[in-house]
């Protein structure tokens, strides 16, 4: 279930990407954080405690919103915009 709720600005172009292999939609101008959390309720599981995380500060300070692409690239979700065809993963533990 979505963690973030859209309350405005819903007339933007649809962007299609995959989340854990599932085709999903976001809107142009969404950060990866918004795109993932309007389609699910976490960004990743932590490498230290295997607990879910969904970011915290949303302004590039806490560094708690890093996510992985299927290719293994690491992106800061609050400061990177979603793009068509991105393949993002939220499941599974990852290590540095």
């Amino acid at each position: 279930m979505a963690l973030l709720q859209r309350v405005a600005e819903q007339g933007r172009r649809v962007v299609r990407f995959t989340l854990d292999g599932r085709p999903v939609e976001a809107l142009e101008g969404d950060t990866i954080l918004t795109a993932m959390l309007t389609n699910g309720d976490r960004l990743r599981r932590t490498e230290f405690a295997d607990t879910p995380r969904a970011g915290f500060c949303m302004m590039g300070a806490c560094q708690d919103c890093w996510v992985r692409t299927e290719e293994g690239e690491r992106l800061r979700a609050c400061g990177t915009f979603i793009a068509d065809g991105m393949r993002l993963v939220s499941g599974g533990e990852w290590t540095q």
Partner: protein
Amino acid sequence: MSESLLPPVIVGAGPAGIRAAERLVAAGLRPVVVDEAARWGGQIYRQPPDGGFTRPKSALYGFEAGKADAVHRAMAAIRDRVDYRPRTLVWNCEAGALDLLSDGASETLPFSHLILATGATDRVLPFPGWTLPGVFTLGGSQVALKFQGCAVGRRVAFLGTGPLLYLVAYQYLKAGVEVAGVFDTTPFAAQARATAGMLRDPATLAKGLLFVGWLRAHGVPIHNGVRPVRAEGAERVDALVWRDARGQERRTSCDAVAFGLGLRSETQLADLAGCRFRFDEADRAWLPERDGAGRSSVAGVYLAGDGSGIAGADAAELAGERAALALLEDRGLPVEAARVKELDGRLARIAAFRRSLSAAFPFPADWADAIADDTMICRCEGITAGAVREVARSGQAREMNRAKALTRAGMGRCQGRMCSATTVELLSRTLGTGPDGVGRLRAQPPIKPLPVSAGAERREVA
């Protein structure tokens, strides 16, 4: 080229950085403005991304729409006369040079005069469950709404202290989101007493009262003297458990918690620049020293805005311009004495008002004593409160950097931005010193994580 002829460099394109740039441009200089965001405005006047966003500024910034618009327009008007570098992280500062990262490539930017307008983020202390999905900072919750048109949940609890607590709760309510309650850590009596001092700025006081009135009129419960017990939930938040002013434990169901205890300055670059720091009682933090004009202890380095002491957006605009005037004066350029006097007067009045505001929203120092040993204080590496207390109790660490070396608190990806307020309280209260008695966490480059490839592509620019 003579060193003094390098263009001034401004770090940060919020209210302070923009007003500084505007003043330098007016004097005929072409400053470099480096900013991490894609668009100017900073956090408080952050603009939505390009493309498709349609809400007017009145909807985004409310009462502050006029100010936000003026700051945005000021930058637009000088856009062609500044070397503007958006999406660029300043990750290091050494004598006379900054290291930048933009689009994956690093470069070195030499400077002779530097204005640091680095801003602030929420100050936080931990409570059990604070890492659960659905717990966000107050500032972050506002960013979600303003920058993305999203609420952090369907039913949101607002917890903590500071002007943002009521402002963001009000903004959420206005956006049609259910507000589960405002859980203010400040006792009601303290707030009432401090209100008298806030009469220095009736407009701000009136706005604060309006937010509270609006929330009450819409049936939002407002609780004072609250302490959090825990955020509950397995994979995400489903309730906030809290203790009321009488010590009774209560539970409020919600699917998000927006949380913050005022703001903390981003001082890392001032530290790396070699600026001398002092402990500031009002901010309960070590801050780079600055004189009334914004000069730091390092010649050619100036400080403006919340990055060197929390004073808010209006003060940031004034301080940005004031620092630019100091810079111009130091470069031997003419400055208008009447303008300097006016800015100094207005900054002094804001400083007096901020002291009343701090009294109205005091830092809940006793919170730290209630943090259980098994509570995670570090979001990066899962370090517990007990680990920090233990190195203090055993005599192994009497200050922040030693505690960091032993426990790794402050060594993770955020470099202590989220845990250092906690570590200060845990160390100082275990050792029986004041918060000024345990030193300060030294900044390390890179001040934010860099992609591994960045170092390989480093290049010099003239």
